[in-house]
């Protein structure tokens, strides 16, 4: 059986990769992709803890279901926002989105 620390380290690596994408991408769709990677990494941690710490109630897995729900809603609203912005600004790059400034 693979020890818990291996799962946690895999989750940490995926989370850091997603964070790097959020920090460095210009394309806002790319930023959304990176956020999905981060949410997936968090899910991995939740499921790993639910397997190793508390298996009778599977609370971690139930929580992961909620994380997926929120991720789906976030993706839908985020992409709708990007499309609405694309219609007015004609760009998907985050540094072009400055129409809220004065």
């Amino acid at each position, binding site marked *: 059986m693979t020890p818990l620390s*291996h799962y946690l380290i895999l989750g940490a690596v995926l989370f850091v990769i997603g964070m790097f994408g959020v920090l460095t991408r210009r394309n806002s*769709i790319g930023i959304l992709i990176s956020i999905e990677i981060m949410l997936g990494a968090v899910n991995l941690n939740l*499921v790993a803890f639910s397997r190793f710490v508390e298996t009778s109630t599977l609370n971690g897995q139930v929580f992961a*279901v909620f994380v997926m729900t929120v991720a789906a809603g976030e993706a839908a*609203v985020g992409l709708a926002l990007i499309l609405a912005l694309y219609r007015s600004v004609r760009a998907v790059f985050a540094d072009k989105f400055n129409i809220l400034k004065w």
Partner: protein
Amino acid sequence: MGLSGLVNASLVFKLVGLVAVVFAVMAVTLKNVFHCALALAAMFFALSGVFIFLDADFLAVVQILIYVGAIVILIIFAVVLTERITSEAIRQTNHLLIPGLLLCASLLGGFVYVIDAARLPAESTPAQAETIRIVGRQLLSTQAEAFEVASVLLLAALVGAVFLGKEITKK
């Protein structure tokens, strides 16, 4: 239970984890956003393989259904609808490349240090055989309020996405 009885389960886990990491790096660094979306789908396939290692069979299937079946398709739709911009020639990263790399590397170092120092529980409890029944019970009994809130949240997201996606005509 399941895969843990196999001789090389640990090796297979490392392989699947490596695939997930490689596809995650591709999804973050590739220039073409369409390729990024495809790499994201592959990453979630590998991640659901890891879920199977954790005896979370229901969640592995849900992962593929929601992420690969819905979210990646949605992202691909957004990429296609904003096509003209995603050519290879345009710079895809901002000026934070080096600081971001340093920050993420130090964060990863901190994570690994904490995970290494923590006294994590060894595997002692047996896995649940029927996760889907327990998860369903939890959703409709203990977590019923959160379940209802999640349904309202999804409805709000649906309405909001339709409103935002609609062409706004100025009077």
